[in-house]
């Protein structure tokens, strides 16, 4: 027996939408999933979970965080996200069976909120729980229409406080839907009374929550956990989505007043779907920002310690963003290439992409420089401050565990290791650190921790906060064998075009057992010699022939192109973009 689908359009549209969302977030926008997964650490522990029970909406956020942790695996994460974005369409379709039965307009209507959510989701701060909020509103409304609308009207009144506790402010949108449904779809004077009672229960619930149940400010009780993303487009889509869903019964009621032909016309229904699809996909790709994507991807590679991958990525897809260039420099330092490869990647910010200044804007990232150069106390401080301000995140807890292990604070390290062990995807990391805590003699031999211990300060000083670059000479004085600090000092000179600074510190090359001068330092030496006529003492080291040849070529090309200043930079950039000389003359 052949079975035919009742409404194939429903399945096709939803599949198409799912495929669109899946492709987008698995493809060009996968950085959003990483960003959000890295933004929060879900911990299976009473200490962590308790906090989510202390205010209405907390459970919604907890649910969102729970599913967000699965973004750790790209495919699972994208399936969760795409499914979450598609489900509202399915719910609205079934809601329409009650509100707009047998109408071809049901299909275009059902696809509007999912596309709006999808467009909001292009912003990396649009969290999964925001989607859940709208999804649950529709779900509860569907349950009401299907099971409760003809039954006793006090059931929604009883359930409202529980729903409010679960989804917070989204419950108000649901209330609006229920009131409008009551007013426009029911008959008799009872609908006015029921609507008033419903509104009254909602208000009393909030007041009772404030006065008796929760120690939360009033503003929090009526806004949490509504999204507050600082982006104009996001605001616009959010208001449209909220308004659309809140007054949906009114919209459908208004549509029922139109002629039957409109509702029966497949052409109109299909055309509307196509227009909505087209406009949304256009907006989707318009929202994509490749610079943001590059920064986040670079951050991911560095946090995953895939330093060579990060270096290659930035050199192939240069980012104009300060944080991206900062991470590129971190990756170079961790692979001992900072002074030999610095200019292979974009350097647009002078010295500012070497060390991030202390402020809340950079709280997420600043620790890495200090960790790289061995100022472990300061790395700990940044990670700790980030944890205080933004909560538990994989990177800050990991860094806190590592810095305490390196510093020999094993009991403290245990606490952070315990946190990692109580997670779904970082327990391996926790176990790895725990093994070291079980046998602390292995720490000195650990490739990462042992190295950091060797380059830490040997005596004490106060860390400079306002001018953090001043920590480097202090660190070098305290531990003259700290090669990473030395290279940061030298590239600081390079980026600030302080050639004399380079020359004055050349003797340290021998002290630090360099068997080869890093390329950019060679370039600076040649530039110095060319300009002053003096040859600095290099000890046992020499400048490579390759660099000398290249320098001669540079001088020759520079002289030749000097006649046309308007094109000189472009010509020189093509051949010498990755040299100190180009940076010195043209940046």
């Amino acid at each position: 027996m052949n079975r035919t689908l009742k409404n194939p359009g429903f399945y096709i549209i939803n599949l198409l939408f799912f495929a669109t969302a899946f492709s987008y977030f698995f493809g060009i926008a996968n950085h959003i999933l990483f960003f959000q997964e890295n933004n929060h650490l879900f911990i299976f522990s009473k200490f962590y979970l308790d906090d989510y029970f202390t205010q209405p909406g907390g459970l919604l956020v907890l649910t969102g965080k729970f599913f967000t942790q699965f973004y750790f695996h790209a495919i699972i994460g994208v399936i969760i996200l795409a499914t979450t974005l598609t489900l509202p369409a399915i719910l609205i379709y079934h809601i329409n069976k009650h509100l707009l039965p047998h109408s071809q307009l049901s299909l275009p209507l059902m696809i509007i909120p999912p596309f709006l959510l999808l467009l909001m989701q292009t912003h990396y701060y649009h969290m999964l729980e925001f989607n859940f909020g709208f999804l649950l509103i529709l779900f509860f409304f569907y349950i009401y229409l299907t099971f409760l609308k003809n039954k006793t009207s006090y059931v929604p009144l009883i359930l409202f406080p529980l729903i409010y506790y679960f989804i917070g402010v989204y419950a108000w949108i649901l209330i609006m839907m229920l009131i409008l449904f009551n007013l426009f779809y029911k008959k008799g004077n009872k609908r006015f009374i029921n609507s008033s009672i419903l509104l009254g229960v909602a208000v009393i619930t909030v007041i009772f929550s404030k006065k008796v149940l929760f120690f939360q400010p009033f503003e929090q009780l009526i806004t949490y956990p509504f999204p507050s993303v600082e982006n104009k487009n996001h605001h616009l889509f959010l208001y449209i989505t909220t308004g659309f869903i809140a007054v949906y019964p009114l919209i459908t009621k208004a549509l029922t007043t139109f002629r039957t032909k409109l509702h029966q016309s497949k052409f109109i229904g299909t055309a509307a779907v196509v227009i909505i699809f087209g406009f949304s996909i256009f907006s989707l790709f318009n929202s994509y920002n490749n610079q943001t994507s590059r920064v986040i991807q670079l951050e991911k590679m560095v946090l995953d310690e895939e330093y060579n991958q990060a270096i290659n990525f930035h050199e192939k897809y240069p980012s104009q963003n300060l944080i991206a260039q900062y991470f590129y420099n971190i990756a170079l330092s961790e692979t001992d290439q900072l002074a030999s490869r610095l200019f292979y990647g974009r350097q647009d910010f002078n010295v500012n992409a070497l060390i991030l200044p202390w402020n809340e804007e950079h709280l997420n990232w600043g620790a890495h420089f200090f960790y790289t150069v061995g100022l472990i106390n300061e790395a700990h401080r940044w990670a700790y401050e980030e944890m205080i301000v933004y909560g538990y995140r994989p990177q800050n807890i990991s860094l806190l565990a590592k810095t305490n292990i390196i510093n020999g604070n094993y009991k403290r390290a245990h606490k952070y290791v315990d946190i990692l062990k109580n997670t779904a995807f970082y327990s391996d990391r926790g176990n790895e650190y725990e093994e070291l805590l079980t046998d602390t003699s292995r720490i000195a031999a650990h490739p990462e921790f042992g190295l950091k211990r060797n380059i830490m300060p040997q005596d004490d000083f106060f860390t400079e906060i306002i001018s953090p670059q001043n920590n480097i000479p202090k660190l070098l004085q305290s531990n003259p064998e700290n090669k990473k600090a030395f290279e940061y000092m030298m590239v600081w000179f390079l980026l600030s075009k302080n050639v004399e600074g380079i020359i004055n510190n050349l003797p340290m090359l021998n002290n630090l057992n360099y068997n080869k001068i890093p390329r950019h330092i060679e370039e600076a030496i040649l530039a110095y010699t060319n300009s002053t006529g003096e040859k600095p003492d290099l000890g046992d080291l020499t400048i490579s022939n390759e660099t000398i040849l290249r320098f001669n070529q540079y001088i020759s090309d520079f002289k030749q192109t000097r006649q046309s200043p308007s094109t000189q930079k472009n010509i020189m950039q093509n051949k010498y973009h990755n040299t100190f000389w180009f940076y010195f003359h043209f940046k």
Partner: protein
Amino acid sequence: MNFLKNYITIVLAITIFFGGCQKFSDGNTEKISRDAKIRPGYQGVTIPPNIAPLNFMIDYPKNCVAVKFSSKKENYQFLVNTTNGKIQIPERKWEKLTKNSIGGKIQVEIYAENTTKKVKKYNPFYIYVAKEKIDPFLVYRLIHPGYYNWSTMKIEQRSLESFEKTSIVENQLLEKNCVNCHTFNQNNPEKFLIHIRGSKGGTYFADDQQILKTDLKIESMPGGATYPSWHPGGRFVAFSSNQVRQNFYAHQERSIEVFDLVSSLILYDTQTNEIINITERDSINPLQTFPSWSPDGKYLYFCSAGCRKTGSNLALDDIKDIHYNLVRKSFDSTSRTFGKDELVFDASEMKKSVSFPRISPDGKFIVFTMADYGTFPIWHEEADLYLLNLQSGKFKKMELNSNKTESYHTWSSNGKWLVFSSKRIDGRSARPYFAYINSWDSIGKPFVLPQQNPNFYNKMLESYNIPEFVTSKVKFNPTDFESAANKKPLISSPGNPNDTTPRWIKLENEKERAKIEKGVHE
């Protein structure tokens, strides 16, 4: 929620009872002459008779463990079993046990069944029960032991006789302002003050039923009102006024150094709403802090490091040269005047520095914290508690110290118990410890605040800050402070309008604080 907890406890208890642990008795055990490893280390501690159960963890992965608690005095005993290493003592049984052991000791015997079902019995240990009760509540601030930033913060009270705790102040109701320095007049829960720093800033005086928000700042103060001390009469409060800074160490041995650029002392008269300078006007960059009254109100004790160099920051060597001595001034409450400084304890001679002087209620002793230098000993691992006999002048390092930080301490109302902050568990987070002070020569081994879940401290990242005893439950709750914070503050005025601006203000008048110095006392 309580019902659910109780239901689960009952189910677990039944499970454990029928769960397969064999019956432990001396007849079927092998005695081993070894101490069991337990956490917290409650062996040999002295406790008050009204303390909550001392739940603990046993560190061995055994199948079944049973712990027998017995009172030698009244022949009362009971057994607590566990299969997960957690010994959680039933509150009623514990209460009966401690009552039966007043002036004596509780014997604790641990039986452990290993994987081959053999039962071993460890060396018993004892818990001594003092005659004197402890104040029933402890008030403290919960805060992450961090640097500049803070987030959620609360002042909480915990019953010492049970595990009940409630919030007094929660800062999410105060726009995430910083709350600190809760201080009670004579351990009285109905009369206390707290500071709030930020958009709702002020000093909040709680008195009986109401909370009054005040602005304690006059021109001649170097900073806001900081460390408080109530005069026993209740009319006056002495404060230090500090310009506080933080520096961070690079070497792994230390973390943070908090110091004062300048600090002076003021007296606040709650009746007239006036502020009077205590520190002499001709002092240049004084360093006077931590005021503390004698129980009879005739003397104000405080810490003084003379005066320091000018400048908006200090180098490490400069800070290492700062040593605070213990000093006092006499006080006439009628004229609101003070006498000259009298040196009480010369710590600088020992190259040490005193903080937090606290006089016992009977006026005989002072407990203070002493560290190698500076004025913020909670970040000094070498900081320890010292006892000074005010009559004989003898002093000693107290037996209750550990090799980690011991700092902030207060006396109970009956003068028999001391609560102090100790970082001995993990070196970073401060926990409240209690010690029985029977006499100069007899100080009990301290014990940490007991928790229902004995594994609590292993998970907790926050510190217990400024533990203070109170004689009964504080009735105020966070919404009371929220209401008070929305009111206009009462502005204080100088007690002597003829006071010229002290010289330290002229020299160190910082109008702009660095943006980075967030989260530090203003």
